[in-house]
């Protein structure tokens, strides 16, 4: 029961803040709502028993990526909101329609999947460690070592790319 209340409350907050993110005029407010959204997503992860990921979500998303966004928004302080510029080629309605179609499709799949017989929980490969964090660490450094290294390379490349882009002259 408590879990259901928590879930519905968190879900409502996530969706509410998400709507605010995409609908607010002021970009800084939008970024703030995004932070709130991420914090509630982190709460959802805790609900799902993934504490490590929740901490990472807050640390990386809320504490890192969104600060970056805020930085850029502050630097790109706009005197003229971009929305003021009207472009006849823009089809807002089409956007909403397509999004609705996506929702229907994904929802249908979900409901269909639900009506199927429940999947048997497959126990993970036997791991010598217990606990959420240790488990993830074990997986990352055994089965997923190569993707992990690729991800770190990706971050390195992105870092260099960002420096090249943002630096005025090299």
């Amino acid at each position, binding site marked *: 029961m408590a879990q259901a209340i928590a879930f519905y409350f968190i879900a409502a907050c*996530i969706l509410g803040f998400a709507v605010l993110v995409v609908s607010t005029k002021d970009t800084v407010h939008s970024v703030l709502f995004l932070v709130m*959204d991420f914090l509630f997503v982190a709460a959802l992860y805790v609900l799902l028993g*993934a504490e490590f990921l929740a901490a990472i979500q807050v640390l990386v998303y809320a504490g890192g990526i969104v600060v970056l966004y805020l930085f850029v928004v502050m630097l790109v302080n706009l005197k003229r909101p*971009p929305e003021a510029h009207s472009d006849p080629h823009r089809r807002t309605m089409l956007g*909403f329609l397509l*999004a609705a179609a996506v929702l229907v499709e994904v929802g249908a799949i979900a409901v269909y999947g639900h009506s199927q017989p429940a999947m048997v929980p497959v126990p*993970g490969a036997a791991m010598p460690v217990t606990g959420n964090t240790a488990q993830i660490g074990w997986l990352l450094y055994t089965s997923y070592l190569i993707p992990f290294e690729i991800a770190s390379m990706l971050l390195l490349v992105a870092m260099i790319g960002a420096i090249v882009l943002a630096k005025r002259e090299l």
Partner: protein
Amino acid sequence: MPITTTHYILLSAALFTIGVVGVMVRRNIIIIFMSIELILNAVNINLIAFSQQLQNGIGQVFAIFVIAVAAAEAAVGLGIILAFYRNKETVNIDEMNVMRS
């Protein structure tokens, strides 16, 4: 009613859709980037919900990769925005048509 994986999937679908709406409707490229972050979060919710259902950590490992990619994407994307803003003084995606003559 117990909360099942389906609930999480529906939540994720709704979040995903909101993100899609943001990408398609808004013109401010920073908001579009943030909508993409919402979409990635929707994916992560899915991954972790399945991870919990399957009782293994693989979904969470994937979520970590998604976060890494999101970080990379934000860094490069925002770098591009800044570079573009320096030259054009705009973040409106409709005005970003330098390739179109």
